[in-house]
């Protein structure tokens, strides 16, 4: 009951901010439409709808990091968290209360992207459903990063780190906008040492029905999600103790 109340409050705070809706939903959709228009005029395999959509759904999750980090850093700054720390809410309530509301939002964002992609010509198969289901562990990774950054940064820093840096990193290093083979070298090695390109390739494999190709990408995603979540919990508890 307590956790649901707290999670409900967080959901309302996120969804009532028009900027969140504009960026979280509007921006990925604009990208799908824009890159599909480019693809219609200058065909590029990378921007074919079945290649593009998984990349956009993963990129869209970087906004979940921003939402998650922003709400936590603002609650810290306004002392609302300090007030709630003196209530019967437990550390588990706080962590789940900040994490759980973003999972359905992430799934909804992914579903909307796929609906638009279907309108633009993506073939409707059961694999679309699997791709939506497998976005959940990827969303946990991005939400955990938000919990982590929100625990150590103030809301202005969150805007810079999550709003600018992370969205760009997750875009450039994901292989969505350009083929990483074209750059190669250290850039490609760095990209493959991070989880973003693995999340995109896992989603592409699922959508294509090549389930054997999910691996090893899924291990990378699950590994990073576990590490990010553990680090986020530790840092959140640390700042809670420091209060």
């Amino acid at each position, binding site marked *: *009951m307590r956790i649901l*109340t707290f999670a409900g*409050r967080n959901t309302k*705070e996120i969804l009532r*901010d028009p900027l969140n809706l504009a960026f979280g939903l509007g921006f990925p959709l604009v990208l799908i439409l824009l890159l599909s228009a480019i693809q219609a005029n200058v065909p590029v395999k990378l921007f074919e709808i079945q290649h593009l959509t998984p990349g956009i759904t993963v990129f869209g999750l970087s906004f979940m990091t921003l939402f998650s980090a922003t709400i936590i850093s603002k609650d810290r700054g306004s002392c*609302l968290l*300090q007030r709630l720390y*003196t209530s019967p809410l437990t550390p588990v309530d706080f962590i789940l209360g900040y994490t759980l509301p973003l999972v359905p939002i992430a799934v909804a964002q992914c579903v909307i992207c796929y609906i638009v992609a279907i309108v633009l010509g993506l073939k409707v198969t059961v694999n679309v459903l699997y791709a939506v289901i497998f976005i959940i562990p990827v969303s946990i990774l991005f939400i955990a990063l938000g919990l982590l950054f929100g625990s150590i940064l103030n809301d202005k820093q969150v805007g810079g780190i999550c709003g600018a840096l992370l969205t760009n990193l997750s875009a450039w290093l994901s292989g969505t906008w350009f083929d990483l083979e074209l750059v190669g070298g250290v850039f490609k090695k760095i990209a493959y040492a991070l989880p973003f390109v693995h999340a995109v390739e896992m989603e592409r494999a699922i959508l294509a029905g090549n389930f054997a190709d999910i691996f090893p990408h899924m291990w990378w995603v699950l590994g990073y999600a576990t590490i990010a979540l553990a680090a986020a919990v530790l840092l959140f508890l640390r700042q809670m103790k420091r*209060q």
Partner: protein
Amino acid sequence: MDAIRLEGLTKKYKDVIAVDNLSLSVRQGELFSLLGVNGAGKTTTIKMLSCLTQPTSGDAFLNGKSICKDTAAVKSLIAVSPQETAVAPGLSVRENLELMCGVHGFTKEKRNTKVTELTERLGLETVIKKKAGKLSGGWQRRLSIAMALVSQPEILFLDEPTLGLDVLARSELWDMIRSLKGKVTMILTTHYMEEAEALSDRIAIMKDGKLLICDTPDKIKESAGTDLFEQAFIHIVKGAAE
């Protein structure tokens, strides 16, 4: 009976002693103020008493419960209205009160009763549907105190409750705080001398984490040999530095 008893309460941060061997007691229903210049240790004292930070040594007992050994019991007795307004800006006034009812595990029926009661008691009827983030500073402070009262605390900590408010809003908030006197034990920290003098039953003046004096406003003025409380405060704090 004492609502709060501090016994050698001390907090050290590396080389800095924020609160130094503080011992005092607060009676039930009393409005007790902590006064001091910046860095005196007022907020650290409140943080320790509200179980937000652990003391380095010493202990304090709130209605007989130890802040070191019985944190859960202490938390059930207290509420805090922090220095910042500490409201959820995207929620309406009603939703903010419902949030606090929810985190305290109230049933729907009890929640509705409590929201109605606090809305009337704190005069929030006119703003009940407004988003908290859109309210003026005075209304936000009022809501902040209402949120703290949701759990029917026996002890209420008010950390700089009128900071940044205009004269009218401050006067209204004073009336509201006065209306709680006798029903709830209140610990108030403030920088405003006239606020401490007007509201408090007793005042403790702190400097560098140490308690300099603890008495009624009149006795403090008497001991400093002046009729003005502000002068008495300056006299005592400067006297401690010499």
